[in-house]
């Protein structure tokens, strides 16, 4: 009898607490690599979301907003595990993940559990091509990026030959596949080599020497920032004559810090940064809050995702997935990365520009849409 009473009491307590928690706390989960090679970007994302929660302040209908961090480690298996953990802890919204190869498998449990997921970084175009109605993406897609890259090669650099390097992951290999497609369609730029590296490696001299011999006009580095920073240093040590072009995963203050003078003259594609008072305010708040020297590139998108999610929950009056996704979709939000308006796939209307590293700073260089210098 006493045993039964204790059991009943336990269940009552569990159920009671759960009910209380759901009524008062809004949980925002994040998925990003907090360990492993890409932990810098992962930490940027987590800090961006936390900044958004702190800046937003009191959310109507909730006592407090809690950020539940999940570690995706840029790995499909770990990301799925982290996503399930977030689902079990009762999150209402998930912001993440970083690597496309982690976001793709993590989508499955999250979409099944009907949780709104906003990725602040994953750019592989497959992610929004699956008809998931709860999935949104902050940065521009990779096919847009590849198109911009090929435009830049043809119209601005007037390159005849290009060599590609990727590290075989979903994002990097997807990007080189798209560039190959666009380049072959127009036929102006010839792809003379396609090399691969292993993620996490330090030494790329064998592949770079091979490309030095091929001597293409441009070498495209489709890698993440840690590999990119080391690769460009080794390329400079080999005195390679080709121009170097890279993408949004290398576009990070850490690239400038690690590569230093080696980074000069590297072109990168990244979305245009609007110079608004909100953005300047965010940079100030972020740097003060996290004692950071610079704001990571994906912290902007993570902050926007956090702010938009909170504003949408307040506007919809609920954190339930269906009304929430309708609210997000039907409104235009202002963010530090520009205006946010989603199409029916969950993609934003946002495009890349080409940046150039000059005096150890990223400087806007060329706009593929208008074909003009910036």
């Amino acid at each position: 009898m006493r045993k039964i009473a204790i059991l009943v009491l336990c269940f009552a307590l569990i159920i009671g607490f759960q009910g209380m928690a759901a009524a008062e706390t809004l949980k925002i989960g994040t998925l990003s690599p907090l360990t492993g090679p890409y932990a810098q970007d992962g930490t940027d994302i987590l800090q961006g979301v936390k900044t958004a929660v702190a800046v937003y302040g009191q959310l109507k209908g909730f006592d407090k907003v809690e950020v539940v961090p999940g570690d995706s480690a840029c790995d499909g298996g770990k990301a799925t595990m982290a996503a399930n953990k977030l689902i079990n802890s009762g999150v209402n919204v998930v912001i993440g993940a970083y690597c496309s190869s982690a976001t793709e498998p993590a989508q499955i449990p999250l979409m099944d559990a009907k949780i709104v997921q906003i990725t602040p970084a994953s750019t592989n175009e497959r992610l929004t091509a699956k008809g998931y109605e709860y999935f949104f993406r902050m940065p521009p897609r990779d096919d847009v990026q590849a198109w911009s890259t090929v435009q830049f090669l043809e119209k601005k650099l007037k390159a005849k030959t290009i060599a590609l390097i990727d590290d075989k992951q979903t994002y990097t290999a997807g990007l080189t596949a798209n560039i190959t497609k666009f380049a072959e369609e127009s036929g102006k730029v010839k792809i003379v080599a396609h090399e691969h590296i292993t993620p996490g490696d330090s030494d790329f001299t064998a592949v770079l020497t091979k490309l030095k011999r091929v001597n293409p006009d441009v070498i495209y580095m489709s890698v993440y920032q840690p590999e990119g920073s080391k690769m460009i240093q080794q390329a400079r040590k080999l005195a390679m004559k080709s121009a170097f072009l890279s993408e949004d995963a290398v576009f990070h203050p850490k690239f400038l810090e690690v590569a230093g003078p080696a980074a000069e003259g590297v072109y990168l594609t990244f979305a245009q940064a609007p110079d608004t008072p909100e953005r300047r305010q965010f940079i100030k708040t972020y740097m003060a809050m996290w004692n950071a020297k610079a704001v990571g590139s994906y912290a902007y998108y993570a902050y926007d995702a956090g702010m938009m999610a909170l504003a949408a929950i307040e506007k919809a009056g609920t954190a339930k997935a269906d009304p929430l996704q309708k609210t997000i979709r039907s409104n235009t939000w202002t963010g530090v990365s520009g205006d946010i308006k989603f199409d029916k796939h969950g993609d934003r209307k946002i495009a890349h520009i080409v940046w150039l590293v000059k005096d150890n700073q990223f400087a806007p260089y060329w706009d593929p849409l208008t074909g003009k210098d910036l």
Partner: protein
Amino acid sequence: MRNVSSIRIPTSHFRILNSIICLPCRSPEGEGALSDLKRNFSSMDLSAFLLQQFVNAIFLGSIYALIALGYTMVYGIIELINFAHGELFTAGAFIGLIVLTALQQIGWVETHFVLTMIIVFGMAMAYVAVLGVAVEHVAYKPLRTSSRLAALLSALGMSIFLSNGMMLSQGVSDRAYPQVFGFEAIEIMGARITNGQIFIILLAFALMVGLQLFVHRTRLGKAMRATAQNKTMARILGIDIDMTIRITFMIGPALGAAAGVMVGLHYGAVRFDMGFIFMIKAFAAAILGGIGSIPGAMIGGLIIGGIEVFWAAFLPSAWKDVTTFTVLILVLYLRPSGLLGEGTTEVRV
């Protein structure tokens, strides 16, 4: 002027070799291919290309060899794979970073360059030597008489402990290493070798030669070899076994620490988990050369570095790591004790 006599390839073979080597040079259209090929050859001829890849291989190989020495020395003396070695290597890189940054701030890099390098390498190696002894004292010594599996688990635990300790103290992201060497290089027959690379290769070989001399020419080295051969007998003959093991745990990790500083100086960035990839390659090198054998580790390191570089240089680079480990498996299949291994485990009763 195409002086290929040094590598002795007949001209007919030379053409075939070219078509293999320059796979990416060929474009789908037949017409453009030839002109492309010509243009490409004007940029870097075969001998320069081979020499450059040889430099790349020697550089990478000597770093692997230095790390592999730590594994092989510890295994030789107590028959334990020191899984914490990768972390000791990383710790060395971090100590080097801290010391170098401090010295750069007071301007010693410009004024006293040689002294700076001595201090940086000295401090890193000394710190990690002490750390190595501490690891041995805490994690391995109490388990010396228990089963090997227990010691192995203890080693893994130590590795995780050190790795997480460095993550908490040094952060999760890449830390930039001061680039004191710059991009200046000398060019020999079209192959470039930077001043930093020359310094690092020379230092690595000096350390390896020094180790070889130490082991074969000093009393301590003799004690070490005796302990490796037969601990009981060595003790009977009056060798302080504990001291000998402790010294092994100072030298091995110190060489790893030197390799860590070299990696930082050349590649420009260090991270708390960078030991892992280097550990796998160096471990493979130690096994390939015959674990327990010091010259074996050096040769193994150079071979692993060579396979990695030359495979990526001539054949599809995506298969680089597959090949490295295939070669390792093949060698072990044909010679289970490694290239220079003596099969000590079987001989010893």
